[in-house]
Each structure stands twice: as C-alpha cells, then as structure tokens.
C-alpha cells in the first residue's frame, strides 16, 4: 500500500500509518503473515547488492573494483596471503582488505577476506554504540571443530604479477588459480574448472566510512516511517545510501552504528545445473532460480532464522534454521561451498548456458549455475569443496563442522507429543492407552503449559502436582519425558531464574547496554545470552536435579523459540543492534543464536548430578551449521494438509545432505485436524524421518494413534512397529552418520550420482545403505506410487518379497492401498531387524536379531552392517560396542559375521552392557534370504561360532508364479550377535 505521504503532514502520516496497521490486522487471512518478513528490497543490504549485481551484469565492460596488490602476496605452509585493494572512488582511493586462502589437508580450500580498518578498530561507531568494531570473526569458534590442518604439500605451481596457481588436494589434482586484477579465484579439479569466485565481479565488501551529513532537503518529521518511498526520489545518482545508517521495518528501527558493512560474492558452478542445500526452506530439494520467470522464484533464498507462523510451501522464504552449505551436482561430479557467516544472508541463483565460448552455444552448450551470496556483516569466509563425490562432500564438510551426535537409542523411537498434555494424569493415561493398544513409543512430550505460568523449571501445581510419579510410571517401561525449556525467561518478581539472570548480567542486552526486554510466551521476558560462557555455566546449574525439581534421569529437553522468537521484535525476532557477550551485535550472530542456546542445554544435560555422564537429548527448532553435533531439529510449525506432508520429505532430505540428518516434521501436521487417511499416511511417511515425532497444536482435537479408530489405528500401529523392528538398522545408520557425516535418508542423486534423471527426485529415498527404497504416499486417495529405479539391480517388495518388475531409469508402479507402505528392498544387502514387538526400544535391548539378506541380480554377494551399543552412555567411546559386518558369499557358499573394524572381541574388556549381552546370549534368531536360488532348497546349514559347530534348520519356499521370489529362512541360528560366526550352505 502506497501513501502519498510526502504531501502530508507528519501527524497525518502517523494516522495513516496506524490505519495501515489496522487494515493489515483485518486483512483476509493468509497462511503466513508474509508481510511480517522482509523481501529482499526491504532489507537494505540485499537491495543494495542486488542493485549492484544488476548494474554489473548489465554493463558489458564491468570491472570489479577489487585487485590483489601483487607485492603483498606470500605463500607458506599451504596458505596464500595478500591484500586486496578496493578502489572506492574515481580518485582511485582504495581500502585494504587482507585475504587468506588456506589449503586444507582434506582438500578443502578456504578463502577469508577481512577489512583492515575495522580489524584494527580504526573506525568510529555512531550513537555511542558499545558494539565491537571488528567484523565478526568468531563464527569459526562456534561452527568449525576440525579439518583446519593446512595442506603442507600444497605448492605454488605458478606465480607472476597477475596470478598465482596453487596445486593441492588428495593427489594434487586440485588447483586454485588466484587472479590478481581483476580479482577472482578459479578452482579446478583434474584440469577442469569447477567453481569460480568473483567471476562475474559481484564481490562487494562494504568498507567502513564515516557518515557525512548532507544538507537534508526539507525532510519531514515522518521520514522514518516513509524512507522506502522517499529514497526513490532522493537518489539522482551514485549509490543508494538510504539504508546505510539506519533502516526501519514493521515499526522497528535498526540503528546500524557501524554503517553499511555487507559482504557479497558471486560463486559460479561451471557446468553444474543441479544444486542443493542451504536449508531450511519449504521447497523442493533441487534449488530453483531466484530472479523470476516461469517456475522460478522472484526472491533470493533467505537465511535468517525466524519464527515463521504458518509458513507457506514452495518458497525461498527463510525458516527457523540455516545451514549455508551448498552443493552442485552433475553426472559423476559433486562440488560445494560453505559460506561461513552467521548474519542475515540472501542467495540469488541463476542458471545459464555457457556463453564464454561462442562455439559451445547450441547443442553442446552446458548449463552453469551462478550464485550470488550476500550477508549483512561479518567476514567473507568461504570454504570450497571439490568432491568429486557426494560422499566426499559429506565427509569433508563433516570434518569441518562436525557430525551428528551419537543419539541415545530411544531418540530413534516414536515420540508422542501434543501442545499440551494437560496433566500428569493425562500423561499417565496416554501412556497406559498406548500399551493397551500395543503401540510402541519411547517418549512423551510436554509443551509449555506444564509450567507454572510459563516459568521454565517450574510445574503447574494444579495440573502437574506429581511429576515424579509421572516420570516413574514412564520409566517403568523404559520411557522418557521431554519438557520444553525456551530461552526467554519470564520477567517477573519472585522467580529465581529471572532474578539470577538479571543480577548475574547473563542476559542479552539492548543497544543501550541494558538488559533487553521483549515479549514471548510468558509476556515480558529476558533472553539468556548463551554466547556468554558464564551464562552457559549458570544454565547448566539450573538443570541439576537438585534445582529442576520434578525432573528425573528420564527427563530430557526441548528447546523451542530459539531463533530467538520475540513476539514484538522486528520480524518476530531480536533487534539487530542488541548486544551479545563480547560486544558483538545481534546482527553478526543472529543465525548462530539458536545453536548457542541448544548447545548450552546440551552441555547442561550431559551431567545433571555428580558422576553422571549420558548422551543428552535436546530437540531444537533453530539451528546453524554445526548444530548436528548437538541434537535433532524439526521442521517447525507445519499444517495438517497433504501438501505439507509432501513438503516434509524434501525438507528432511535437504537436512540430510547438509550435514544435519537428525530431522523430522511434525507427524499429522501441527496446525489443524488431519483427516484419518492423512494422519495414517503421515505415520507411514513419518517412520522414515530420522526424528519421528507426532505433534499437534493446542486448538486441535486429540489424535493419539489409538483414537483414530479402525482400520486406521491398526495401520498406524503396524507402521510404528515397522520403525521399531528396523531400529537396529536405523541405529547403525546413525553410527555411520556420526562417523562419516553421511545422510540417513538419501536422495537419488546422493546414492546414484551418475543417473541424471534422478537428480531432481525428492519424493523417494534410500534408508541409508540398507538398500531399502521408500516412496511414501503423500496424495489423498492415491492407491499406488510410481517409483523411479536408479539401477539394474533387482528389487523386492518389503512386505511380500515379490520381485518388482523394474528396469533401470524407468518408473515402476507399486500398489499402495491405505494399509501398504511402498517400500522396496534392493538386492545385494543384509540389514538387521528385531521382530518382537515391544512397548519401547528400551525393552527390545535383549532381544535376538533377524537378518534379512536380499540376493542381488547376479546372485553373487550381499553385505551389510550392524552397530549396537548400550544406547545411552558414552562407553562406546571406550570400545564398548558391537560392530559387525555380514557378508553372503555365493562362491564360498557362506554367510559370515566379522567385526567390521577388525577388532578381536577377546581384546575388548567387556563393561556392564557387553557382559549382559554375552550373558543373555543375545544372538541371531533367524536369517531370511530373499531371492534364494533353488540350491537353498535344503534341510539345514552348518553354523560355526565360539569354537562350536552345529546345524540350523532351513525352510525353503520356492518362487511363486507372477510374483513372490523364492526365499529361505535359516531358523534358530543361535550364534551370539557379538561373536564371529560362519554359516556354510554348501
């Protein structure tokens, strides 16, 4: 809405502003209050940089004003250093921007650019600001945990006054060509260009400058609320300075004491058409172009953690968390970049046929992707990964930012949540009813209504008079309770947490340096500043059992609202000029904020009393690169609608390939009441979320699975039990993710990087390396799905063992009535199950295992893994785990189990859990060989283990015409799961 405000007196403008606000209030409801969040043109630095890009790209003779001072360069121990000069005016004045290009042992290159004047503090801040003068340089401390060792083998292959070429990487097959003037860096692998920095000349580091007050041409009092409209007119020439010194949005003004300070860079992926990553966005896995046009977005992808109420789908809008890691893929090659910056960030994406070589135009022309990264403040700090496989990216990115924390096993079970279970009796009742209906679950959750008037660490004494009694009942079946604890602390007298937060000065401060006060659930609140080590230590003390009365060893925590959500703040979050520990402005650290809080809670829970040490469980809504080391995330407040079910799959896949696979969406949908069929399908999909939790808004009807009625309750129960029976495999995949940074549910491009037709598929996925290929039904009334088959391997239906008539690169239709989950088993794998349905994962601990072997097309071999430990302590760090590798070898006619890491069981001194595993003789019950040839039609096989030999009975079922593959079941194998064993079926 535009008002001719220049023509009006200030008073009238104010009135009109009020009216606008009011009409916004009564405007027709849209799903997301879109106008609550900025578009690029409403974010000063984004607008400036987009305009800069437009200008550069429209000018054929565009020259970047950045060049390296050749004489400033040096190269030592895998590190290239120099000074970039930025020419800032026609007089040729320059500012100095020190650049470091580090070549790391992992083959990753890192380019860091700082600004000398700010670095040295030779700038002046406005408004008596207490903020730091440097560009924010501590993101690394929060995010990077390793992989920074320099590649001493990297060598300067060529060097002159115009450029330097460095060869580096695993076999020196990587190459970085640093061009001095104009400045740019080109990264090659095996001689072919992969990634170019500043190739299009969009590098922009807004250097510090003093504010020069120009004579204001008859400004009105109402200027602040109307800057948007004004600047159009007041900008005859030169740069758009209107948003340099302050800017307003939604009635909040950002004082910007350091002036303009954005950093921007263009990154081109040469010959790459498919790009992925930079979660979290509610859109397809493959990122779209953002400069408008059919099927493309108008807005850049935004990374600015925010509490987005009822978010819309298929949008580049920001969500609750951000991981600025992007990957580009083409047939047989994968590369990536990691933009280490915690400030508000926008990423524009365009694709173009290569025009560099006119001869390449036409049939042979390849498409490249051009990205433009823009952050509001901080260093320019970018990591370049040259792959060449998706697994390499996962590994090297994982080395830098860490891998998924090894979760407690219960965390992989089913989580039953609702806003809110209304009393301790209610919780106990749900607990009983789940048992009564034989539905396994591990965790029940309490949203914020359990507290005494939204004061965390307290209980509502009317509704939760006996939290310990409740906790004990849950513990009776090995179950856990998760309570919500958010970073806003109610500002009220007589609440010790609030009093201490204030008296100990541990809260985030406002721009004046006083404790920041804003509104959240409890009303007036303060926010813990988890950047402050003292605040974290204090936070840890609050979780001690002696302090958090009513919490128990089976109580775990949920951190919500940690973007942070501030109801009355700009874009529902904190003012950017708030000040954190160390004098950093909130703008510098915003996207890290959620992670620091999540981290504080995580550390608080490792030990809540002397001598305790257990893996914590803390769910977060907000996250950043590195949050995977702490705990799971969920995709926030979705809706009970089919399209939200659909959207959850690419969102979870995107988290997976971005290093944070422990993720899930609210099963059933948070807002609204799902129809029974939607709820059922959602469970059938949800069992494949690494984090599997049902949740519902306070205004929704009750929907615990046993309330659905038949046939829905039975179908949902069978789905949940499928999840539980496969827990040994899921846990093994988490171990893999923990060690190697690998995704848990895997999109086609990841598993089959040479099959281009699968690159854009984001509605089907493999469950780790188990060979299980799932495609959940996400459309109403749909009774079959078309599954795209990436290879020539044989596929069996999970539930019937039918051989599915597949062919490589084609889709196969699989029947999926409501009670059927489309799930295939790829030939060539061995995966592990526990078939006995129990009430919780804890009660499955001592059950025998079932191995499922899927014979491959060529019948030759199949293999798989099992990792198991006590599921809760850190003893696995001391070798207290079982890690088996199973191989079926058709030539040798054996199935063997050996230690996957070549350890000898006898060398491991068994701790409590290992001893019990041995004493209980937890072993292999049966082995199902799907697709077994007729040679398996025999009475028995020989089993050798623990120095003994015995026979096990075989039951062979020949193939059925028109479908079911032959299968053999080796019954009562009887070998211990932790022992080496060999089955001979000669």
């Amino acid at each position, binding site marked *: 809405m535009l008002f001719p405000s220049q023509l009006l007196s200030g008073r009238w403008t104010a009135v009109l502003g009020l009216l606008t606000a009011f009409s916004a*209030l*009564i*405007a027709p*409801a849209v799903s997301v*209050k879109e106008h609550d969040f900025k578009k690029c043109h409403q974010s000063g630095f984004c607008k400036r940089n987009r305009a800069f890009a437009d200008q550069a790209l429209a000018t054929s003779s565009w020259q970047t004003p950045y060049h390296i001072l050749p004489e400033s360069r040096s190269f030592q121990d895998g590190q290239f250093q120099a000074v970039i000069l930025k020419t800032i005016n026609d007089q040729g004045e320059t500012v100095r921007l020190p650049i470091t290009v580090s070549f790391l042992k992992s083959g990753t290159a890192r380019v860091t650019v700082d600004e000398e004047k700010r670095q040295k503090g030779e700038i002046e801040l406005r408004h008596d600001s207490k903020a730091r003068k440097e560009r924010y340089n501590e993101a690394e401390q929060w995010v990077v945990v390793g992989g920074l060792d320099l590649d001493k083998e990297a060598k300067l292959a060529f060097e002159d006054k115009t450029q330097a070429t460095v060869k580096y990487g695993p076999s020196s097959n990587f190459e970085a060509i640093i061009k001095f003037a104009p400045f740019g860096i080109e990264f090659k692998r095996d001689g072919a260009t992969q990634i170019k920095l500043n190739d299009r000349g969009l590098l922009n580091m807004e250097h510090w400058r003093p504010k020069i007050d120009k004579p204001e041409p008859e400004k009105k009092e109402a200027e602040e609320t109307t800057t948007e409209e004004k600047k159009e007119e007041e900008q005859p020439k030169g740069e758009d300075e209107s948003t340099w010194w302050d800017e307003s949005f939604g009635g909040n003004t950002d004082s910007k004491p350091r002036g303009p300070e954005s950093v921007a860079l263009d990154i081109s992926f040469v010959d790459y058409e498919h790009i992925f990553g930079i979660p979290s966005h509610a859109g397809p896995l493959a990122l779209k172009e953002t400069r408008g046009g059919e099927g493309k977005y108008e807005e850049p992808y935004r990374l600015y953690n925010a509490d987005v*109420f009822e978010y819309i789908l298929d949008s580049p809008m920001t969500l609750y968390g951000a991981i600025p890691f992007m990957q580009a893929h083409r047939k047989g090659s994968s590369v990536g970049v990691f933009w280490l910056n915690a400030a508000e960030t926008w990423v524009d994406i365009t694709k173009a046929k290569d025009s560099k070589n006119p001869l390449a135009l036409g049939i042979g022309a390849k498409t490249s992707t051009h990205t433009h990264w823009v952050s509001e403040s901080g260093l320019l700090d970018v990591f370049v990964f040259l792959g060449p496989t998706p697994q390499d990216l996962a590994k090297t990115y994982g080395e830098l930012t860490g891998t998924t924390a090894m979760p407690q096993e219960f965390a992989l079970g089913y989580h039953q949540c609702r806003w809110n279970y*209304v*009393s301790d*009796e*209610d919780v106990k*009742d749900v607990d009983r*009813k789940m048992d*009564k209906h*034989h539905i396994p679950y591990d965790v029940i959750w309490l949203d914020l209504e359990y507290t005494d008037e939204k004061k965390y660490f307290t209980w509502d004494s*009317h*509704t939760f008079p006996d939290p310990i009694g409740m906790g004990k009942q849950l513990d*009776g079946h*090995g179950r856990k309770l998760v309570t919500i604890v958010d970073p806003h602390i109610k500002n009220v007298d007589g609440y010790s947490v609030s009093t201490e937060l204030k008296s100990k000065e541990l809260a985030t401060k406002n721009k004046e340096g006083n404790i920041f006060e804003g*509104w959240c659930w*409890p*009303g007036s609140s303060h926010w813990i500043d988890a950047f402050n080590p003292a605040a974290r230590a204090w936070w840890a003390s609050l979780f001690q059992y002696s302090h958090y009365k009513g919490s128990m060893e089976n109580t775990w925590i949920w951190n919500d609202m940690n973007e942070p959500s501030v*109801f*009355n703040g700009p874009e*529902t979050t904190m003012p950017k000029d708030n000040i954190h520990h160390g004098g950093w402005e909130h703008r510098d650290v915003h996207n890290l904020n959620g992670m620091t809080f999540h981290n504080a809670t995580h550390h608080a829970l490792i030990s809540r009393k002397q001598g305790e040490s257990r893996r914590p469980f803390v769910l977060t809504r907000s996250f950043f690169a590195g949050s995977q080391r702490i705990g799971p995330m969920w995709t926030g407040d979705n809706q009970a609608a089919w399209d939200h079910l659909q959207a959850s799959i690419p969102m979870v896949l995107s988290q997976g390939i971005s290093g944070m696979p422990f993720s899930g969406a609210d099963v059933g949908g948070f807002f609204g009441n799902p129809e029974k069929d939607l709820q059922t399908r959602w469970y059938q999909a949800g069992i494949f979320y690494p984090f599997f939790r049902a949740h519902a808004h*306070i*205004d*929704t009807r*009750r929907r615990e699975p046993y309330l659905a009625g*038949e*046939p829905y309750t*039975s179908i949902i129960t*069978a*789905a949940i*039990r*499928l999840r539980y029976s496969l827990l040994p495999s899921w846990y093994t995949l988490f171990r893999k993710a923990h060690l190697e940074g690998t995704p848990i549910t895997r999109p086609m491009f990841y598993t089959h990087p040479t099959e281009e037709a699968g690159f854009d598929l984001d509605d089907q996925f493999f469950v780790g390396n188990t060979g299980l290929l799932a495609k959940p039904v996400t459309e109403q009334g749909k009774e079959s799905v078309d599954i795209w088959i990436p290879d020539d391997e044989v596929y069996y239906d999970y*539930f*019937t*063992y039918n051989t599915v008539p597949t062919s490589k690169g084609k889709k196969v239709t699989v029947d999926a009535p409501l*009670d059927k989950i489309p799930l295939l088993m790829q030939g060539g794998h061995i995966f592990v199950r526990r*078939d*006995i*349905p*129990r*009430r919780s994962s*804890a*009660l499955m*601990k*001592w*059950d*025998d295992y079932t191995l499922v072997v899927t014979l491959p097309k060529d019948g030759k071999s199949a293999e798989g893994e099992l990792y198991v430990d006590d599921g809760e302590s850190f003893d696995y760090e001391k070798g207290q785990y079982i890690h088996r590798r199973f191989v079926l070898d058709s030539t040798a006619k054996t199935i063997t189990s050996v230690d996957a890491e070549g350890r000898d069981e006898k060398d491991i001194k068994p701790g409590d859990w290992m001893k*019990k595993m041995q004493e209980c003789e937890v072993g292999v*019950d*049966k082995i*199902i060989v799907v697709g077994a040839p007729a040679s398996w039609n025999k009475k028995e096989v020989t089993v050798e283990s623990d120095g003994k030999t015995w026979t096990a009975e075989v*039951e062979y*079922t020949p193939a059925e015409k028109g479908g*079911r593959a032959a*299968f053999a079941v080796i*019954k*009562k194998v009887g070998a211990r799961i932790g022992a080496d064993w060999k089955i001979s079926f000669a």
Partner: protein
Amino acid sequence: MRRTDALLLVSGIAYSSFVAAESLPRGVGPEFAKFYGSKATFTCIGNPSIVLKSSQINDNSCDCPDGSDEPGTAACSYLDPLSPEQPLPGSLTGTTNTTNALPGFWCANEGHIGTYVPFMYVNDGVCDYELCCDGSEEFAHVGGVKCENRCAAVGKEWRRLEEERKQSKERSAKRRRTLVKEARELRRRVEVMIANLQEELKRLELKKGELQKKFEEAERSERGKVVKGEGQGGKLGVLLGLAKNRVSELRDTLDKVLDQRDDLQDKVDQLEDILKKLQDEYNPNFNDEGVKAAVKSWENYAAEQASGKGPELADADIMEILKEDSETSGINWAEFQEEGASDADIVYNLEAYLPPFARDYLHEKLNLLRVWLIENGILADNPTSSGESRLVTAAREALEAAKNELSSKTSTLEEEQRDLEKDYGPDDIFRALKGKCVSTDSGEYEYELCWMDRTTQKSKKGHGNTNMGNFVRIDREMADDEERADGKGLGKGQRMVLRYDNGQGCWNGPNRRTDVWLACAETEEVWRVREAEKCVYKMEVGTPAACEDVHEPGVKTKDEL
C-alpha cells in the same frame, strides 16, 4: 484387521486339578495343556501337518505358523496383524498377519488369579506385576532383572479390595434403591399433577365459555348506548383533531427513533465486524494478553448476544404503525369525523380498533396520551358515560384472565407431560437427582454438575462462571480405564454418558461441551474433570444411579488389557 482380544482371565482354582503344572512347557495355559502332552514331538496346534521336535518348544525361535511352539517366550509375538506383514507359508493368511493360536503367556499366579500375559511382555526386562504377580514372565532375567513372586501379597490385597468393593456395591445398591423409590414417588407426583391439571383445564374451559358469553352480551348492550349517547360532538371533534395530531407526532418521533436506532445498529454491526475480524485473524501465538483478553470478552459478548436475543419489535410491525392512518390501517379517523359525533369512550377503547400486533404497542402510548389529555383538561376525568363501559371492561378482563389461566395451565400440563416422557435413565432414576448439583475443586476452577441441567466452570480468580454445556441426552459408551484402588474411576465396560452440549462459545474454538461419564459409587461425587482438548470436557462422576449391575455383587467382569 481388528485385533481380537483373546486374553481371558480365568479363575485359576477352576483348573488347579487339571494337570500337574510341572509337566507342562512354560507359559501353557490350563485349557491348552492337552496339546503339550507328548514327550517326543509337538504338533503345531493350528497346523497339524507340522511336527516339531519337542526341543523346539520354547526354544525362543518361532517355528509354528500359529505360534503354538512358543507358549513361554516372546519369539512368536510378531504373528499379529499389528506387526508389519511378512510372508509366512503355512499360516492361515500366508503371512504374519495372523492370529496366534495361544492367547498369551500363562501366568499361574498361585495365591491370586491366573492370567494370560501378552507374549510381547515376556522377557522384556520389566516385571508386569499387575498381570503376572508371580514374576514368571521374566524367567530369563534379561538385563539382570529378577521378578520376585508377589502373589501372596497381591492376592491378599486383591481379596481385601474385592471384599470392600462388594460391600461398597451393596451399599451403593441400597442407595440406588432409595433413589429409585424417590424417583418413582416424583414420577407419581407428576402424574397426579397432570391428572389435576387436566381436571382443572376442563373446568376452566367451561368458565371461559361462560365469560365469553357474558362479555359479548355486555358489549352488545354497551354499543347500543354508545351509538345513542348524548352528543358532545363539538368537544370531541376538537379532541379528535388534537388526538390525530398527537398520533402523527408520535408516529414521526417513532420514525426518527427508528432511524436513530438503525444508525446505532449500523455502528454496532461495524464494530462487531471489526472485533470478529480481530478474533479470526489475530495471531494466537503472539501471546499478547491484551489482545487475548479483548478477544475473550468479545467472545463472551457474542455468546450472550447469540443466546439472549430479547423480544424484538419486528420492523414490519413498526412499519405497520408508521403507515398513515387510513380505512385499511390504523385508526380510521374519517369514520369518526364523518359520523360527526364521537364518544370519549371510543378514545378509551381506541386500541380495540387496532390490528392485534399494533394494539399492544400502542396501548402504552395511548394510555400516556389519555393521561396527557386528562391532565391537560382536554378529556374529562371519569367521564359520565363510562359507567356502563366499565362493565364491558370488567367482562373483558375477566375473560382475559380466564384465557390466561387456561393457556398457562395448558402449557404447564404440556411441560409436565413432556417431562414424563423424557428419558431419565433406567428406572427413571435421574428424576431423583434432578435439580441437585455436585461440584469439585480442580486447580483454579471449581467444576459443577447440575443433573439434567448444565455443567459449569467457576473461576476462583473471579473471571465469572462459564457454562460448559446444557443437558441434551443420555448415551452409553464403553469405558476402558484402569481399575483404581479407591474405586473412584470408570473402570471397564459400558457406562452411561450424560451429554451436555452447546455451552458458552470457546476461545478460538467451538461451543463448550461436556461428557459426563458415570460410574457406580455410594454417593454423588465428581471425581475428576479434564479438558483433554480445547472446549471438550470429560467429567468422571460417581453416583449410585449408575449402579446397574448391583444385583450381582462381587462378580468381576473386567477383562484385563
């Protein structure tokens, strides 16, 4: 797909002499003992073609497609429609989506009552004492768990409680009988009342007829007098003129008042629209207490408006009055003017000429006019010619009174007749509780149940009372709760549910409603109230009125699990 709950609770004593327990494989219930007799082999119960070595019984590996080889372990517990389906040749369905031939793991519970425990509870490391007090289902001691035999204590306690329950049931039954007696008496009273009313109505009908006749006679004779009355034409003419003007004035004023009302109504509508939009579109997650309070007040206001619509003057009626008087509407002034003479009595009885809807409305106005006329000396007080007309008035009033009495008695009769037909539950029992209320303290609220009337939430913080629903009907539903030691719970089985619907409109939701679940108890008592989801309340209430199976005290009908 529906799971048939085959678990039975059978008295252990009945089978104690059946077989020697030691000779049976673990977990075999008495009625299945016959299948486990042979020493050498075992035949799957449901698949006689499958013969196993007896060593395969309870070897913790499932061999029979009906699960019968594992009566004492959890190994076959996945043979269940609730588990993911897998092919299983030999089972009835050819898959694991089948039913186990055995109902569960037999837990003998010596000293208490033997029972079947679901197979999936066997050897999971948890002592399920509430089912298996002898701890035998954890024989493998997985993870080091050891479940002691608690049957002696559990059995003793159970028998004590059972005795208590029995006694309590007897006391409840007694109270129920009293209630039934009361209800019967109340019903009888209603019946008597109805009979009396019917009698009285007959009498009233007669009386009305007589009065009607009297009135008509009086009127006829009076009308003659009026027509023949001495002429006071001149003065009456003036009066007529004045009255006509006054009526016009009144009509104009009414017209303006109406316009003003419409204006105000428009404004109210606008404001209500704004508030409604605020209610619909505010963001409830932005926990602004101010906005919430405003929306809440608005909702209460709206709810009141919806329920408490006062008698409203229909616009059509007003328009009728506003019409210019003419031959066909209002007062036909011309008629009086033409006759040249009129009578003050006519003015007194002006209203008699009006259409009935206008009569009541104008009655008051004209009375005022009459008073004004008298006070201003225009109309003589106590006019001489009114002696006879008073007779008519009296006759009419007597008739009206008779009519009123008749109609009020008729409606009382109808009401009582309806009441008699109303469902007051079995034996009419809630008749005895009608008009009584019980309440309970629950946190910041007190909840009140008024039998056959309404449920109410009373705030202790002074936010006023909230109607949680008005009684609609009595239903029956299956309760499925744990038995409580104190007996204050719904337990299992069919229970009466009193539906209370359409209570006060709810914050961001529908109208409140309450399901009042009843279970047998010695006294009326609200045990607990829960708002499991927004605006839907569940009250659990004990009352002797719900003791329906009291004639069979002591019989345990619950089926565990």
